[in-house]
């Protein structure tokens, strides 16, 4: 059997993203700067790059938090400080073994991350910026004033000779550890990014409402991201201790947190190599290359960052990467995303028909926005397997109704049921996990993902095991589209991609919000075929909100007409077409 993947294999295409190559370049750069100075026996650079590599590791986690989870934290210096300070307290002042002390340090860093993460469950955006910045200001104050525990302004001096013993080629355990750790951090960042969790995090960061309709809780994603970053940064804090041998409150002031944040911005947000280049510029440049002007370093950080935002917002690595993308990847024109061939494979049992079971039922559902009643005492039943068209003038409440069904907004009165189960009070992600999928008026395409990854987030949202046909489908799609740039898709193709996403999710009920808007007439015909395919071949229940009445009359089994939030007519297409409530919707009596 000839699959489409065999016909045009993905190999030979330029890579859509350079994350993996950047990881390898990053590892090479860290290896050179981490091991190189020891090999040639330059102890100044050995020490310098030990600290630089720890800062790189912290920035890598900052980068993950900033871009993959969309959280702007100005307090990563606090987490580093908690790891270092608590380890120093237990090791230096209370004489625990280093390992036990380090465990306490890691615990403290994790708890610090929890302080950031808890508000993240409720709020996002600039609020967390202020919370983390507050923490960065409060932390050194606390180190000073809790002097009975922290030794106050005098700091804590620790002796860890074992870490500095030279083994072979002048390499000490410390040199090896602080060089390997940022490499590991890069690997972890890459690994998370390629995982289901990482994709879901990025979806939640870019479009929280799309995430919720894919069964993702954005608050939980933000929470997890803060915790992961805190653990990673806490370990860096533990390594900080043998590297510097001394901790004091001044060492962990707000300036340190700014270094990590600014390094990510200057290096290139989201780029794997960004934190490495960023720290080299932001930290090494003012502190070492321009050491005579060390009092100007804050000014240099600020100016560099402001200039980056104003002049090349993608940062250094990001600008290079964008140039590469522009040059390397080209679109494949109008026909680049065709799914007919894939659907052929899927043709299951022919001839599903609408059943008498009820998939969705609304009882007296009412949704108000202030004084406006967007959905007004709506009673609606959607049978399993049918295509249900929802029509009405602009502002008649169709999209509001769809948002209620997908859980994005809650009814003020009334109730609704999915497969007989009360879903009135369920959140959008729970409803998604009951087997509901939807598309949006503007298709949610994620530009940082390849085309295949854009589809794969649907597969990620599936609750059960994949059916063999869908599994085969996803393999074929991966082979075909893994290196394609989703941003080059036309509007119509984006729409198809969203539909495909809901198929990979194996949603039993699919909601379409004005799917035909912006499609050409041939695309509309294909789309109508696709909807019928979903219903008749795959047995899905489809609710379609659409202004193109030709399309609705073409595909729908049942049509409901809304006006000013209420249902004014419902029934099969022939009956509805002659209903006076509907007549005026047709331009000049068409469809009658």
């Amino acid at each position, binding site marked *: 059997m000839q699959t489409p993947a065999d016909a045009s294999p993905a190999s030979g295409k330029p890579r859509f993203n350079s994350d993996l190559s950047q990881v390898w370049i990053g590892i090479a750069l860290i290896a050179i700067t981490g091991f190189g100075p020891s090999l040639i026996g330059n102890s100044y650079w050995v020490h310098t790059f030990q600290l630089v590599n720890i800062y790189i590791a912290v920035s890598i986690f900052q980068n993950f938090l900033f871009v993959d989870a969309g959280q702007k934290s100005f307090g990563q210096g606090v987490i580093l400080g908690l790891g270092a300070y608590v380890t120093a307290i237990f090791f230096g002042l209370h004489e625990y073994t280093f390992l036990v002390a380090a465990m306490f340090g890691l615990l403290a860093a994790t708890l610090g991350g929890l302080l950031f993460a808890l508000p993240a469950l409720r709020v996002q955006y600039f609020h967390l910026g202020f919370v983390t910045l507050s923490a960065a200001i409060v932390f050194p104050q606390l180190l000073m004033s809790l002097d009975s525990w922290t030794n106050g302004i005098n700091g804590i001096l620790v002796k860890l000779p074992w870490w500095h013993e030279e083994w072979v080629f002048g390499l000490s355990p410390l040199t090896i550890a602080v060089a390997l750790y940022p490499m590991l951090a890069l690997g972890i960042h890459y690994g998370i990014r390629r995982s289901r969790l990482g994709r879901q995090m990025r979806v939640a960061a870019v479009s929280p409402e799309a995430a919720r309709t894919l069964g993702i809780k954005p608050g939980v994603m933000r929470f997890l991201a803060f915790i992961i970053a805190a653990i990673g940064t806490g370990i860096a804090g533990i390594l900080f201790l043998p590297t510097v041998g001394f901790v004091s409150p001044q060492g962990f002031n707000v300036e340190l947190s700014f270094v990590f944040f600014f390094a990510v911005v200057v290096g290139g947000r989201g780029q794997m190599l960004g934190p490495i280049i960023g720290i080299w510029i932001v930290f090494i440049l003012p502190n070492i290359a321009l050491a005579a002007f060390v009092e100007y370093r804050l000014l240099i950080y600020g100016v560099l960052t402001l200039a980056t935002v104003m002049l090349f917002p993608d940062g250094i690595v990001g600008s290079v990467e964008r140039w590469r993308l522009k040059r390397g990847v080209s679109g494949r024109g109008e026909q680049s995303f065709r799914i007919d061939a894939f659907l052929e494979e899927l043709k299951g049992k022919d001839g599903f028909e609408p059943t008498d079971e009820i998939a969705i039922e609304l009882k007296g559902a009412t949704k108000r926005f202030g004084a406006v009643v967007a959905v007004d005492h709506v009673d609606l039943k959607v049978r399993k397997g049918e295509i249900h068209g929802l029509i009405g003038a602009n502002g008649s409440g169709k999209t509001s109704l769809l948002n209620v069904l997908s859980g994005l907004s809650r009814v003020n009165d009334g109730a609704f049921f999915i497969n007989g189960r009360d879903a009135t009070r369920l959140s959008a992600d729970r409803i998604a996990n009951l087997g509901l999928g939807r598309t949006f008026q503007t298709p949610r395409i994620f530009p940082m993902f390849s085309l295949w990854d854009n589809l794969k987030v649907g597969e990620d949202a599936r609750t059960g095991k994949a059916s063999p046909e869908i599994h085969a489908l996803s393999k074929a799609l991966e082979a075909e589209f893994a290196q394609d740039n989703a941003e080059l898709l036309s*509007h119509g193709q984006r729409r198809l991609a969203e539909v495909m996403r809901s198929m990979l999710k194996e949603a039993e009920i699919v909601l379409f919000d004005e799917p035909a808007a912006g499609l050409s007439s041939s695309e509309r015909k294909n789309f109508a075929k696709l909807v019928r395919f979903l219903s008749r071949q795959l047995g899905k229940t489809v609710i379609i909100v659409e202004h193109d009445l030709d399309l609705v009359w073409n595909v729908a089994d049942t049509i409901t007409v809304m006006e000013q939030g209420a249902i004014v007519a419902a029934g099969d297409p022939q009956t509805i077409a002659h209903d006076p409530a509907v007549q005026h919707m047709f331009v*000049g*009596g068409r469809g009658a």
Partner: protein
Amino acid sequence: MLEVKNLYAGYGIVPVIEDVTLSVNAGEILLIGGENGAGKSTLMGAIAGFNKPTAGEVLLEGQPLHGLAPEKVAKSGLRLVLDGHRVFPELSVYDNLRMGAAARRGDRSGLSAAIDEIYEVFPILKEKHRAYARDLSGGQQQMLALGQAFVAQPKVLLCDEPSMGLAQALLPPILSFLRRWAEAGTAVVIVEQHLQVTAPYADRAMIIERGTVKLECPAAELDDRLKSLETPEGAA
């Protein structure tokens, strides 16, 4: 007064409007009809500067408008009243009308006369002039939105779906106000789905389908022309 030549526009990468040409003279009403999603609102947005046309020209009295920001377009005498009776909800009725003066050309001395004129046409606005706009009904908000545009005394008025979200009975007084306004020398464009109600007030009509002009005719002939166009495909 207003000339649109071979306009192409869309949102982001979505092409919506293709090769639309139209013109309106001072003193006449052009009715633009078409199904929802046909691209009427995009066309209005492209003329008024909300989305940049990818090709084509928009000329007001021969002066190019395309590429200008919406507030500049308004200032030069083309006023778009957005769909969905959008007013400033937390301002009073009177202050909403006052905001209209921003797009007024030249002096502001005629402002209170213009506001009085609006109060005369829609007495309910006078009655409620101290109320917050959010407390008005949809129909009253539409009157207010039009009143705000009237205060600016634009050369061209674009009115996007004045009927949206309103009971149909509220439409005639609004339309006859627009009629009188046009007769005083303003070029008016009304975008509307409810053609039967609107056509009698208009001079010319145009139907947009899937982003292109499908037909153009005197408003009085619209009904017959549409019937003759009827396609078998449309009937279920």
